């Protein structure tokens, strides 16, 4: 019998509705609060060097976030977003990938690009939108991107990267499909990871992206950061049902839920997800359960919509501290050196801020470059007219006037 409806034909004579929580999705947790591997859990295959780099990245991002949040309050940068509370989720997932796997992030995933090797100076150039910014000073602070580091430049519209990740991953797979048989003729060498918050999962792009990835079998890892809040809107005002994980199952995607404050659990889940993606050429969904400890952005004030008690409860569960304790138990971290390194990083950040804010803004030409591969005639004309105008009124345009040839 053919099955044109593509369903499990399981006939029943009982009038029974399925409860939305019927899947009873478990949350993978490996590390205990004191850095011990929990009974019955197994630590993932992670080497010392990776573990140390993972920890150093989390610690660096925590310090960077603190400092830049303060810099925004001082009026030195216009905007900032912290990943406070989600450092382990983001860093450990990035650490479980290959350096040249593609990352398509939402905006709160600076730890992933830091793990890849984005330098402090590069962070600052973007945050201060100076002429050394890879994005040429065109986007708001925290919209990082780097071709060299395989980190797609962030865009502000929410969720748009989700179907794009499917398309990108499809391209990664297409290289390995045998033209005659239509089957994979070798293992896929790269995957795409796509980060988004539980709020973004309400966008149409989420449905479009997951559905297409499932149907067309794209090797993309969807990493849902369920952190409790979409700006001020709590998760229970965003969706019903059992989190984002239950949706993954609905789309026909292998799915796992992890403790997002547990670096080892996130690492293990992402490592396994990557294996599925490259071996089967199919998508995987990871739902990370963490808590957005900070404000949504510097334009937000969470005291207006959530209690101090709630925040304090999650503050006690610091993902960095939990992993640090594990590293200490492993004998992979020296506490004294760690403290000294923190002070050094703080100093480096302050010094980098001072340097970056003095670098000049992008040249006037960057206003019109990259709209197209080469400026179209109308734009070229507008540029020439603008240049003439600035030449005639140099005092009104001090940033660019002196540099026009």
């Amino acid at each position, binding site marked *: 019998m053919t099955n044109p409806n593509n369903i499990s034909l399981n006939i029943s004579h009982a009038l029974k509705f399925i409860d939305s929580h019927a899947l009873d999705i478990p949350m993978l947790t490996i590390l205990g609060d004191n850095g011990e591997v929990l009974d019955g859990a197994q630590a993932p295959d992670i080497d010392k060097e990776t573990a140390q780099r993972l920890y150093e990245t989390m610690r660096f991002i925590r310090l960077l976030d603190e400092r830049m949040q303060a810099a925004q309050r001082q009026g030195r940068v216009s905007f900032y977003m912290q990943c406070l509370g989600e450092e382990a989720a983001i860093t450990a997932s990035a650490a479980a990938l290959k350096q040249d796997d*593609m990352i*398509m992030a939402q905006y709160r995933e600076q730890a992933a690009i830091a793990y890849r090797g984005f330098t402090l100076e590069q962070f600052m150039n973007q945050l201060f939108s100076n002429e050394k*910014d*890879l*994005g*040429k000073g*065109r*986007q708001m602070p925290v*919209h990082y*991107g*780097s*071709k060299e580091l395989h980190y*797609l*430049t962030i*865009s502000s*519209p929410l969720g*748009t990267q*989700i*179907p*794009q*990740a*499917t*398309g*990108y*991953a*499809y*391209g*990664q797979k*297409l*290289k390995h*499909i045998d*033209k005659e048989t*239509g089957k994979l003729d070798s293992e896929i060498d790269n995957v*795409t990871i796509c980060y988004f918050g539980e709020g973004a999962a309400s966008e*149409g*792009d989420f*449905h*479009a*992206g997951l*559905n*297409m990835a499932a*149907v*067309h079998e794209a090797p993309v890892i969807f990493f849902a950061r369920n952190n409790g809040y979409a700006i001020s809107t709590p998760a229970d005002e965003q969706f019903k049902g059992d989190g984002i994980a239950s949706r993954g199952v609905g789309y026909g995607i292998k799915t796992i839920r992890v403790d997002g404050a547990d670096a080892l659990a996130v690492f293990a889940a992402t490592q396994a997800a990557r294996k599925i993606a490259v071996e089967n050429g199919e998508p995987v969904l990871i739902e990370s359960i963490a808590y957005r400890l900070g404000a949504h952005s510097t334009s937000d004030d969470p005291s207006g919509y959530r209690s101090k008690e709630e925040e304090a409860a999650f503050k006690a569960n610091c993902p960095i501290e939990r992993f640090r304790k594990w590293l200490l138990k492993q004998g992979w971290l020296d506490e004294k050196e760690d403290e000294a390194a923190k002070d050094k990083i703080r100093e480096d950040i302050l010094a980098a801020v001072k340097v970056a804010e003095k670098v000049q803004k992008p040249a006037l030409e*960057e206003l019109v*470059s*990259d*709209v*197209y*591969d080469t400026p*179209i*005639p*109308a*734009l070229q004309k507008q540029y020439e007219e603008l240049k003439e105008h600035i030449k005639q009124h140099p005092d009104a345009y001090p940033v660019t006037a002196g540099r026009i040839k």
Partner: protein
Amino acid sequence: MAKMNMLHAINSALDITMNEHPQACIFGEDVGYFGGVFRATSGLQEKYGKHRVFNTPLTEQGILGFANGLAAFGAPALAEIQFADYIFPAFDQIVNESAKFRYRSGNEFNVGNLTIRTPYGGGIAGGLYHSQSPEAYFAHTPGLKLVVPRNPYQAKGLLRACIKDDNPVIFFEPKRLYRASVGEVPEEDYTIEIGKAEVVKTGSDVTLLAWGAQMEIIEQAAAKAEEAGISCEVIDLRSILPWDVDTVAKSVVKTGRLIVSHEAPITNGFGAEIAATIQQECFLHLESPIARVCGLDTPYPLALEKEYVPDALKVFAAIKKSVEF
């Protein structure tokens, strides 16, 4: 050369592209085995396989999101939106993403490999949702290119140019002409430059300007005008973004008069941009006000389509008014 209709010409351009690049993909609703509702992609799945020519789920934002990602990866992404009326669910992906990919990343990333094909326009008794000409919405978006062919020869050469162009391009196909327009088309590869208008017929009294299916209408109007002793210069704009100001301005300097005609509603249609620019470029040469013969500011109707459309008679009336001003 071979006799082809516009669908064959488009199919030929796609076929060349699929041969040229092993990762080029054609995708959209029903474009697989079925060959699309208009059959523009007929035979291509058999030739290139299900992994490169495939049906997508019914999600325009998904098609364009996927296309943006595939193009960013570096594969030629040939996305079809079944009707231009249904491009709006993909509006965000096109306007906020495709168009801005290169600029916002400082050229770290781009989607120059993206070509969107979509049938547009009326004349098929399609009513509100199968007749729209949405080019003006996209003409307001820096970073996109917009191209419209008027016949099979133009369709193949322009589509190949769109595919080779290193920017995202929307290729609007006049669906009324898919089968109605037949002509000689080279079987081999060729391109027609994007951004250049074509003077289809020279004349001295008035310049008529249109694109796509509306070219047929202004050519009919020009013929009527010739009978009345009025010499018309007829120009096919071909590219809406970027558009060829120089060719149009040069013609208007010569004739002193301009009539722009398009199917889309008149208010804020692309004719408005042309009128504003040409009056600036040609102010002292104008013998009469620039006129627009366009759709009404209503949704595209069904029963009263004949009354609604900017037909040859309306264009002819505008020509007479212009020369008698």
